């Protein structure tokens, strides 16, 4: 914990250096209003004698906290989280596992074996760094590009691939599209497609959890910078602040929402720039730097648990892969641009460089690891593909806690139709 308080202090120093404050009085000659203090219920502020028009440029950008440079060197040694070799290796291997699994599942979608997929390329450090700074009891609400959090928590290759195939082993019973993972055991709330809906939900969950006796868990809500434009994001920020909810609002700012670049998404200082406007403690980090994300997340967790207040963390990164398998991103950005982020600014290469410096990296071992993962993923694909889909009756279950009368009638109607038209339904692929 020593390293954490050190990192907290240093972040403060950084902030001090950047002087994040309004330069309101820069060009204003003002006269103090003696004897009158503002008593408006809506804001606590001083009177001034000149009109003060705040321009966005008057507010300095929130700086990006970074620990590792692109060569894997720690710039400020006070910021070294001093993680053990085993922990760093798990971080690295989890990132590699996610990256390898992504490559193969992406290809398997191209071959028509699964219907849909979304990769995590370029954002591996945001997932792993943040997940490593949390406790497994902390509850995660995600968007869809946070599979690394599940990897860190122990979701297995088998579970990932079973979900993508929607077979009988999928805990979600094959009801949702691929990559809509969820796990009760790992405190990872099931993903849904509508963007930002999870945000006010995470805030509500945090409120309920803080009321539990001896609560020792917080809630983390991941979302992209595009989702942050939704009304639900505004609701979440404001509810979290006014209702004092121990929730970490973690924005993955990867520069794109499908084809829409960030500069068409907002005009302010990213998402972090909004945090103070809602009265929320805020930090911005280099999302390609696993240690920066880790340190910042530790800081956020300590803060939200101690203060019972929210925190905003914006992790800057670049979406190296296409938005999804339904998207060709070269239609709206250059391959050269992508290549920079796929090589020198890539989170995996940065951590690798760090490990090389520490002499923790063994080329042959890592190559074997990748080979092993490839083999495991490919083998699992062939196994998951052969597993039966759930019984078709599951179509009617879990709409309610029980199957009400009108749904029983509809189930019976379908049953009869299947019996009459057996050859037209893919019944043999489904569990009897």
């Amino acid at each position, binding site marked *: 914990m020593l390293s954490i308080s050190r990192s907290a202090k240093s972040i403060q120093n950084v902030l001090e250096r950047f002087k994040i404050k309004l330069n309101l009085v820069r060009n204003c000659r003002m006269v103090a209003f003696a004897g009158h203090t503002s008593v408006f219920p809506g804001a606590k502020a001083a009177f001034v004698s000149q009109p003060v028009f705040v321009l966005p440029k008057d507010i300095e950008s929130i700086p990006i906290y970074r620990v590792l440079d692109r060569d894997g060197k720690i710039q400020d040694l006070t910021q070294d989280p001093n993680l053990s070799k085993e922990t760093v290796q798990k971080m690295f291997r989890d990132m590699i596992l996610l990256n390898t699994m992504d490559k193969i599942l992406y290809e398997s979608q191209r071959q028509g074996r699964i219907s849909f997929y979304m990769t995590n390329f370029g954002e591996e450090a945001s997932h792993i760094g943040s997940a490593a700074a949390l406790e497994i009891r902390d*509850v995660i*609400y995600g968007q869809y590009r946070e599979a690394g959090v599940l990897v860190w928590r122990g979701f297995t290759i088998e579970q990932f691939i079973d979900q993508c195939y929607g077979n009988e082993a*999928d*805990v*979600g*019973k094959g*009801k*949702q599209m691929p990559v*809509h993972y*969820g*796990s*009760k055991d790992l405190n990872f*709330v*099931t993903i*849904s497609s*509508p963007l930002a*809906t999870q*945000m*006010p*939900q*995470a*805030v*509500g*969950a*945090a*409120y*309920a*959890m803080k*009321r539990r006796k001896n609560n020792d868990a917080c809630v983390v809500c991941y979302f992209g910078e595009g989702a942050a434009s939704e*009304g*639900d994001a*505004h*609701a*979440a920020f*404001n*509810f979290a602040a*006014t*209702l004092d909810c121990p929730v970490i609002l973690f924005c993955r700012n990867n520069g794109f929402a499908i084809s829409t670049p960030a500069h068409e998404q907002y005009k302010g200082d990213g998402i972090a720039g909004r945090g103070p406007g809602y009265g929320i403690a805020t930090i911005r980090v280099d999302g390609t730097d696993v240690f920066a994300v880790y340190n910042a997340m530790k800081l956020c967790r300590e803060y939200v648990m101690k203060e019972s207040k929210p925190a905003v963390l914006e992790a800057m990164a670049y979406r190296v892969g296409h938005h999804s398998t339904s998207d060709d991103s070269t239609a709206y950005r250059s391959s050269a641009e992508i290549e920079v982020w796929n090589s020198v600014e890539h989170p995996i290469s940065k951590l690798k460089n760090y490990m090389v410096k520490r002499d923790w990296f063994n080329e042959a071992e890592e190559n074997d690891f990748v080979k092993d993962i490839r083999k495991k993923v490919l083998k699992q694909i062939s196994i998951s593909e052969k597993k039966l889909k759930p019984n078709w009756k599951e179509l009617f*279950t*879990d*709409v*309610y*806690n029980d199957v*009400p*009368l*009108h749904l029983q009638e509809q189930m019976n109607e379908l049953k009869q139709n299947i019996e009459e038209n057996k050859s037209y339904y893919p019944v043999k692929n489904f569990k009897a």
Partner: protein
Amino acid sequence: MNRHSRYLFSFVKTSKSVIRTSHFTYYPDPPTPAQNKQKMNMFQAINNAMDIALGEDATALLFGEDVGFGGVFRCSINLRDKYGKDRVFNTPLCEQGIAGFAIGVANAGATAIAEIQFADYIFPAFDQIINEAAKFRYRSGGIFDCGSLTIRAPCGAVGHGALYHSQSPEAYFAHTPGLKVVVPRGPIKAKGLLLACVRDPNPCLVFEPKVLYRAAVEEVPADAYVSEIGKADVLRKGKDITLIGWGTQVHVLLEVAELAKKDLKVDCEVIDLVSILPWDKDAICKSVKKTGRVIVSHEAPLTQGFGSEISASIQEHCFLYLEAPVKRVTGWDTPFPHVFEPFYLPNKYRCLSAIKEVINY
């Protein structure tokens, strides 16, 4: 006041003062056999139900816009003092936030009773209710749910509510698998339904006809009890025609039944559907098979109103028993108007004309 304005006001003074008249006469429920009863209007019965819910479940939370000081309709009065401001509290003015927050509370295993100030303002929360609350259990394969969520919202005509203080949006929600939707007709029902919804392991919506908050008074059992969700109530037995409604409209239909008996010698069976989703098809079909004639009546507009679902089902299940087409008497397919409200509502005269038409078919 100068001479000119005095001149203008002299005209105002001569106009008649407007007396607001209700479009219905309230028919209280028959006395319950309960020993311990208390006279309550509907907002008091709802307050009493929430008091019980908060008292028996330490995780239960009550929140929404202006809920803290007692609510704009007084439904949550005194509850913040009794249970603390961490359990009964105001939220920022944002319906999608209220619904999303409530889902999260329920998802974490606590009980959420959320208030939307008027049903007319539930639409910003439509996405959270339809895409999230209703589908939470289904999409997760049952590993997560938000079943301990109840959303309350005042609905229906109030005499002068115009477009955004009068709506009856139940049909929008009836189209959504995963939700339960109920509408009480008075204090006894409101308390029982609300407690049933709070305890039900599925997300529930309670639309409370706001015109009844003060107008409806009954002897309400003081202890906790539940009114079954999904069950209709036959309020008046009859053999000639079945009249189906819910909420305030039930009272219009009860009066119409009396008028029909007196003026037309027609014996009406009046059913309060109570629960919009799931709805009691058996009770409706049983009655229609007996009477052979049916009128469905609701304040909401005709096209795609919930009356359409009932009518289609009756046609499907009671075809050989029907002596006349199913008639719907509803609000018009317009926004809910201000000064034209008396012409908009499916009042007793329109219902009575419909009875004549169906009987003489």
